């Protein structure tokens, strides 16, 4: 037993010390290539069961969800009034409402549609596997979106599959900007799935109901204007340098099915 434990520790050390293109990571990519079609098959086969389960559990949560949606509508109305104030703000709102509008993604960017075939089985990682890979032009660090907004980024890719780290993962980061207003910060996830906007200067005025989109700053892996979520709460303590902003993502990560990879 001691030998096996030592071997396990050695493997773990080797895994973390090697680069992303090292043999252990390469082995994982190779195995993913084999496993992904199986995952796709079971994902399709079990979808009716999952839909039935979601519908049943949805009945019990409908009341509270209805109340939440009413609040959200009020917030969206308030946000809409602000957005219509100026033409520039209006453009931003349009970018939020119409994700696939050509204005959001620069010329030369292609959207590759794929299906989520597996999710991480532990609560510690928020990742999904999708059934499109380098065969379709997908590469590492590509942004992944769906009809609602930013889903995450590609962290590993093989010929026919890719692993996507969701923005709700605690090791996920995205340059973001609050609209309107333009306060800049970094969106990070957490193990609980909560998403926060950090590093926003205390002097910036951020209100509940404002939208958070990718900033597209130089060096960012995401293009500008991909919707991330809406500001849910704003907190600030005197001892802290930055504001603490909670963001409710537009994307429902529990019900991910069809996604698009932004291939550059």
């Amino acid at each position, binding site marked *: *037993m001691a030998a*096996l*434990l030592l*071997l*396990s*520790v*050695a*493997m*773990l*050390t*080797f*895994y*973390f010390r090697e680069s992303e293109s090292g043999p*252990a990571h390469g*082995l*994982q990519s190779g*195995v*993913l290539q084999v*496993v992904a079609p*199986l*995952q796709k*098959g*079971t*994902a399709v086969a*079990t979808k009716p069961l*999952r839909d039935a389960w979601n519908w049943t559990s949805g009945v019990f949560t409908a009341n509270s969800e209805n109340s939440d949606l009413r609040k959200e509508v009020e917030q969206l109305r308030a946000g809409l009034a602000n957005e219509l104030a100026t033409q520039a703000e209006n453009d931003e709102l349009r970018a939020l409402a119409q994700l696939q509008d050509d204005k959001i993604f620069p010329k030369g960017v292609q959207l590759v549609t794929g299906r989520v075939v*597996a*999710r*991480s*089985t*532990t*609560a*510690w*990682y928020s*990742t999904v*596997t999708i059934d499109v890979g380098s065969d379709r032009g997908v590469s590492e660090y590509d942004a992944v979106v769906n009809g609602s907004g930013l889903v995450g980024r590609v962290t*590993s890719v093989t010929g026919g599959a890719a*692993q996507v780290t969701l923005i709700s993962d*605690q*090791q996920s980061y995205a340059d973001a900007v609050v609209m309107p207003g333009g306060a800049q910060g970094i969106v990070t996830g*957490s*193990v*609980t799935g909560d998403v926060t906007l950090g590093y926003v200067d205390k002097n910036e005025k951020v209100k509940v109901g404002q939208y958070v989109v990718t900033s597209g700053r130089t060096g960012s892996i995401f293009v500008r204007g991909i919707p991330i979520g809406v500001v849910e709460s704003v907190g600030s303590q005197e001892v802290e340098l930055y504001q603490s902003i909670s963001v409710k993502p537009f994307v429902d990560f529990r019900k991910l099915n069809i996604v698009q990879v932004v291939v550059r």
Partner: protein
Amino acid sequence: MRFTRTREDREGWQWPSAAEIARLVVALLAAGLLQTAIAPNIRILGANPDFALIIVVCVALLRGAEIGAVFGFLAGSLVATALMEPIGLGAFIFVIVGYFVGRYAETADLSAGLAPLVSAFAATLIASVLYAVAQDLLERQVPFGFFVVRVLVPSLILNTLLAGPIYVVVRFWLRGAGDLRVARAR
């Protein structure tokens, strides 16, 4: 129950036959397949079932500490590789689970029939705590409330409930139909 091995224990141990190894390999592949292709699509009580852990527990109960530890090492490595998780972490945890469940089976009276459930419960508890400690060492957040409510309790319930039927299938596979008839006759 003794968790350390005596000299008699070590001398009494025999290598499994080729047929037995073949059956264990099939069980290993089944564990890998269930955990990588089926488990990600099943989410009950907010948790995914850990088929690989349960099968390691079953194999350790049926085949003892040594085979349990080796099977755990291989199952942990296979699952981590296929699910793109850090290679070595799952293997480390499953070796511990396989060994100690195997020792429990070698030294305790398993006739009550609750052994698979008790073992799966204890194994899930140990594995969950070890995973949480590892996450903390890897400098990832591990909020205590989140761990207990969203990770530990759902996993304990789900894995314990699944352990019974999976144990029956694994025992049938490793020992044959005759063993099941003997068990029912008792």
